[in-house]
């Protein structure tokens, strides 16, 4: 079981957290103007990279707040954690 760094509480065990999928998916600005296809892509289609992936996590068994993380989907290693309104950090 790996430790995940909550930005507020510090490192906690993986089972304290819940996964929230890809990060930075913004609600459409003009929903009424969206085509069916654009809606489908907003709702159902997500990136699925092997490597660094920006995603959302919530510290469900702790502060219960959401944050973003950059995690490598090949090694499962957390490369960075950051706030929801921040841009994904660039990892050299």
């Amino acid at each position, binding site marked *: 079981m790996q430790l995940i760094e909550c930005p507020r509480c510090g490192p906690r065990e993986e089972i304290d957290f819940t996964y929230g999928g890809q990060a930075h998916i913004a609600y459409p600005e003009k929903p009424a103007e969206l085509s069916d*296809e654009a809606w489908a892509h907003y709702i*159902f*289609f997500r990136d699925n990279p092997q490597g660094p992936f920006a995603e959302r996590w919530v510290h469900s068994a702790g502060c219960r707040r959401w944050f973003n993380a950059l995690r490598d*989907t090949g090694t*499962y290693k957390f490369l960075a954690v950051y706030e929801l309104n921040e841009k994904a950090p660039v990892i050299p």
Partner: protein
Amino acid sequence: MSISTPEMPRTPGADLPEHPDFLWENPIAKRNYDVVIVGGGGHGLATAHYLVKNHGITNVAVIERGWLAGGNMARNTTLIRSNYLWDESTAIYEHSLKLWEGLEEDLDYPILFSQRGVLNLAHSLQDVRDSRRRVEANKLNGVDAEWVDADGVKELCPIVNTSSDIRYPVLGATYQARAGIAKHDYVGWGFARRVSQAGVHLIQDTQVTGFLTDGDRVVGVRTNKGDIGAGSVALTAAGHTSTLTETLGIRVPIQSHPLQALVSELLEPVHPTIVMSNAVHVYVSQAHKGELVMGAGVDTYNGFGQRGSFHIIERQMAAAVELFPIFARAHLLRSWGGIVDVTPDASPIVGLTPYENLYLNCGWGTGGFKATPGLGHVLAHTIATGTPHELIAPFNLDRFVNGRLVDEHGAAAVAH
């Protein structure tokens, strides 16, 4: 050779065939094929088989980046059943189950298909209602299904703890008697042997990296060993499909998740059927040799690492020991992971693409082994005729835009 008497317990493994000799050729790839199948798992091999058998198409290559049937085909827990909820799913899985029932003869190869039945346990009133609904839905679709109460569960699988004082008591179960398991490696090898005899080229250790196109047609595949021309191309690359389609600008709504399984040491026969529980999240069967084969759900996060989290195993073991107290002293022999491709409605994506001769097959997630012959049969039909077979028409990529989802979440998504 000793003469066995009826009292003598059967040696574990005695029913297994001898380790096979070489079963297929390893040819040098030609420049062109009528059909190129990307991915040499069960689905790719089965598709090749039915192209040969039902459509007489033998100028076919199956291209596999690793070794044949070494992906999820080698990692799954081999459960085969057709008691899904929705008509569309039941239809394709039942079609497959019927083919499983004649596959050993068709392939002329032992696949150890054992129809020992499956119990899907219900632990709450809601489970009971959902289960009864599924039983009725199955019957209406001509699939064998029945509801059994807790005593019935005990009769079918005496080692299940049916006492009422456990945390999630067993209130009953659905039972599909025709469900079963097969020996997954032998299934893959049986198909490979058959298609190789018919002249299909099985090209291993070769990775498809992209496509050659001409307008809205695909005319070949790019591989790390050079280009190969193709009359049509079928993608049966499971969790790796989205990486390939992206090179053509086609987005597929799949997310790859680690799914793990484990086996115990060899035990005497104790577990005569298959028992699954979505609610406490464990499923168990006893392999032909005697290991308990157990699985649970996927890890929630995306991953490609072919291993899963330890806490999933911990919860699965807690559930297993409560349901089957006699497992408490069994030793874990090994565990492993596979990467499964999950879709938003937990149903596969199969059919046509914006490229007129490129065919899609992915998103089988945690349950595609049971579909192996059925999918191969209908995909071969689709490739040979250029029109989606009626059984896979509901599973096209368009459904995420037009909203006609086949939502198997809850009904069938969690366990296999």
